[in-house]
């Protein structure tokens, strides 16, 4: 009979191995099996039909590898990652953070003698004079605070808030959404009505109230507080994803195999919803950093003597005309962080979306044609 007629791709094919002949029809029973041997063996590429063409792009890769590969192709996201990593390194090492010692000579709370008139930045970048960092590269305020140290401190606080909100809101959102989507019925109604209620109240208002309660709070408490008003979008999306995934046959298959609800949720559905979750967690973070900034700007977030990017801007907005550097540097960091996170989220979304196919450029297609002709 036809044992072992199945194309047997071995455990470890070379990454660029020829397409596994999956598209080749499995031979028919009995004496007909040998007929396949008579079939014209076109060159390998000819053996690839539409399915094989699709398989070609995913061959020998796990789902995670495919996602990673697609992510690396998203240039914007890669640049954003480099930027964000650079900012994080700069922010943590420059003035030090917790146990990490800093290499910058000034700190953010002391005042220093004013170097340039009006406290203008000492940073010089020009063709003729070269690059000088100077004493206070980002300038000083009227009292003599070092703007570089303050911006670094502000960015630290803002990043802390961002990560806290991102993680906590994701956890709450996934818990609520998964429970509602998987169990449906009463649990769903109850949880979703509660979510609706939370959505109906403007985030800014809740933020203000919470900010007021935790007045003069640290980044930690503010982050915790804001996470409780930011999980709703996540829970809705996760619920929708669970609603559709729970109807898939592999969930039924797991249930017939004897899996409990917890196991189905954790082992079978959650890994399939991870794309949605990661993408939205990143986008949530970019919203979080802007929300923190906005609240601090309004004076309900992080307060003097501690510093965040938002309260720097608010503090110095009146000085915008005379000392623009007090405004621009924190602003630059806010924009860069928010943009980077957004780009990364965008790249992740593209990478996780299996339907998205890249349309090759004319030049690339022509090159491939030349290569084929040369062969």
């Amino acid at each position: 009979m036809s044992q072992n007629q199945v194309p047997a791709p071995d455990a470890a094919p070379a990454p660029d191995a020829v397409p596994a002949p999956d598209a080749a029809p499995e031979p028919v029973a009995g004496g007909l099996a040998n007929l396949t041997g008579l079939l014209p063996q076109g060159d390998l590429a000819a053996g690839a039909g539409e399915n094989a063409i699709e398989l070609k792009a995913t061959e020998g890769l796990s789902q995670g590898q495919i996602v990673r590969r697609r992510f690396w192709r998203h240039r914007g996201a890669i640049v954003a990652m480099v930027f964000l990593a650079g900012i994080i390194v700069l922010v943590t090492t420059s003035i030090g953070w917790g146990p990490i010692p800093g290499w910058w000579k000034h700190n953010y709370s002391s005042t220093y003698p004013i170097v340039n008139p009006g406290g203008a930045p000492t940073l010089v970048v020009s063709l003729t004079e070269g690059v000088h960092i100077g004493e206070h590269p980002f300038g000083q305020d009227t009292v003599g605070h070092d703007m570089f140290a303050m911006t670094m401190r502000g960015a630290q606080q803002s990043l802390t808030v961002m990560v806290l909100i991102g993680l906590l809101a994701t956890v709450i959102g996934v818990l609520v959404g998964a429970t509602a989507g998987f169990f449906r019925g009463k649990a769903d109604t109850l949880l979703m009505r509660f979510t609706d209620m939370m959505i109906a109240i403007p985030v800014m208002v809740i933020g203000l109230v919470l900010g007021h309660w935790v007045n003069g709070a640290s980044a930690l408490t503010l982050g915790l507080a804001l996470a409780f008003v930011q999980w709703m979008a996540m829970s809705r999306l996760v619920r929708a994803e669970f609603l559709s995934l729970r109807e898939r046959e592999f969930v039924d298959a797991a249930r017939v195999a004897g899996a409990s609800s917890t196991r189905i949720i954790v082992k079978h559905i959650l890994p399939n919803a991870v794309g949605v979750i990661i993408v939205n967690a990143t986008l949530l973070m970019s919203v979080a950093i802007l929300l923190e900034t906005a609240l601090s700007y309004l004076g309900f977030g992080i307060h003097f003597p501690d510093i965040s990017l938002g309260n720097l801007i608010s503090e110095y907005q009146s000085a915008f005309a005379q000392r623009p550097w007090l405004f621009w540097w924190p602003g630059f960091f806010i924009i860069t962080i928010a943009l980077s996170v957004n780009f990364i989220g965008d790249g992740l979304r593209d990478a996780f979306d299996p339907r998205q196919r890249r349309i090759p450029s004319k030049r690339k297609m022509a090159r491939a044609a030349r290569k084929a002709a040369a062969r």
Partner: protein
Amino acid sequence: MTAQSNDRPAQPRPEPILRVSGLNVDFYVEGEWFPAAIDVGYEVHAGEVVAIVGESGSGKTQSAMALVGLLPPNARVSGSVKLDGRELVGMRASELQTIRGAQVAMVFQEPMTALNPVYTIGFQIVETIRAHSRMASKRARARALELLRLVDMPDPATRIDYYPHQLSGGQRQRAMIAQALVLDPKLLIADEPTTALDVTVQAEILGLMRDLRRRIDSGIILITHDMGVVADMADRICVMKDGRIVEAGASRQIFYQPRHPYTKLLLAAVPKLDLEPADAAPRLPSPPADAARPASAAIRQPPAPPPAPAEPGLGAGGAASGKGLSAEAGEPVMASEGLTLEYPRRGRTGAFRAVEDFDLRIGPGEVVGLVGESGSGKSTVGRAVVGLLPVHAGSLKVAGYQLNGIRPADLRRAREGVSIVFQDPGSSLNPRLPIGQSVGEPLALHRLARGKELDARVAELLEQVRLPASLRNRYPHELSGGQRQRVGIARALALKPKLLIADEPTSALDVSVQATVLELFSELQQEHHFACLFISHDLAVVELLASRIAVMSKGRLVETGTAAEILRHPREAYTRELIAAVPVPDPDLQARRRLAFERRARP
């Protein structure tokens, strides 16, 4: 290649409507061009049906889409396509646009997705008319009505204002054909026009298309994988494999004297309904038929003595006389009495009663086929038997457990004795789990094996379904459809079930793959002697495996009996109709059957 496509009768014929020669379609993937169609050539004359057959991935759809420029942007087309002497390859998009619809029309596989759900079908047809001609809307509507009449839409004056979701599948397909005929196209491309439809509806639509060919005198390109449909419709056939046309010729020639080994293979792989009483009509004297014999004989059950319908448990006697079963031989592994199943009320839509008053017994080691059209409730029964759907009323006893109102802990134990193979192998395997884990999951969950022992069992199970154990670390998307379904079978067999539910396990597969999976299935059944409820809409497939067949319609059991009884001497009108509607891959036989079917349909 061109030599083969010139297989025309000797007498001079008018110029063909469509002449395709040297057509190549390539797709750009990861920096390289992969050919989907290579040097394809054929001609279509007025009033002629040319069928392009082949399995998925053979390039049949891509080569047809290339005719009208409906390919994704990473495709490239070369060669020549002449429609009435005009070259279509390399034509500007705007010009092609005027040709699409006006001279070439398409009918797609899935009418629900091809029609816009937010407009009435009348509106959509009128829109097509007015996009190509300046016709007043009143006249266009009159024309739309005329077209709906042409495609035999029942009560066209009312149906014209219906939305697609208000129509049945067959009516939708009729509406789509009407839309395609709006501007009297010279060429109609039908891409698997009946694949999504039930056999009885398929027979009607095929009848309509045959009828239309005579009335409108346009050429039809029929793309399909169903040899029965081909036998029913085609004048000439092109067989495609791996992007090339491997054989082309007149329909009878392809069916009765296929020359290319692939064509023979394809014909042999099609399960055939054995309807004629033995020796009443000589079987085809052609090589494929001879070749097919050993193949289907291997699949066929050893001829069991036909059990008395009243005592189905004994039916197992022939098939399952193996050892180890004697102790429970009499006790059926599944028995339902007055079984009623409902889908619970959701929101404002009330509860839906899917199955009513369903009585069936399956003896140990017995294979029972359950056939019916879509919506007949056959899959619902399967889901209820594995406890995925609660029993609403009546009794359902499976593997010694009464499922009516069963406690979760007992259900868990009951499930050790029963498992299921799902229809779509792509959806029934968790895409994020390596297949080894999927297969081993039932064992791990029932604490029957762990660690090394579990690994060994998984390897053994994969071996059983003829998959190399090295595949265990692969993910489902890396496997072909046939391999995935084997994995599904391996998982279902993991607990050595007494009863296996097979819910259309091969309907998503190509014919040749289906043949191997069915063969494997029947081998496994003979080896392990599990009882099986084989659910399918395809009578020919059920006939290969089952010793008894149960026919369902609209949630009720219509008829049960041995395979031979049901197929050759059906008692109920519905069963007769179902059998008559199945197209047989044999042009002459099919022509006779069609005549009989039409006579019955229109007395």
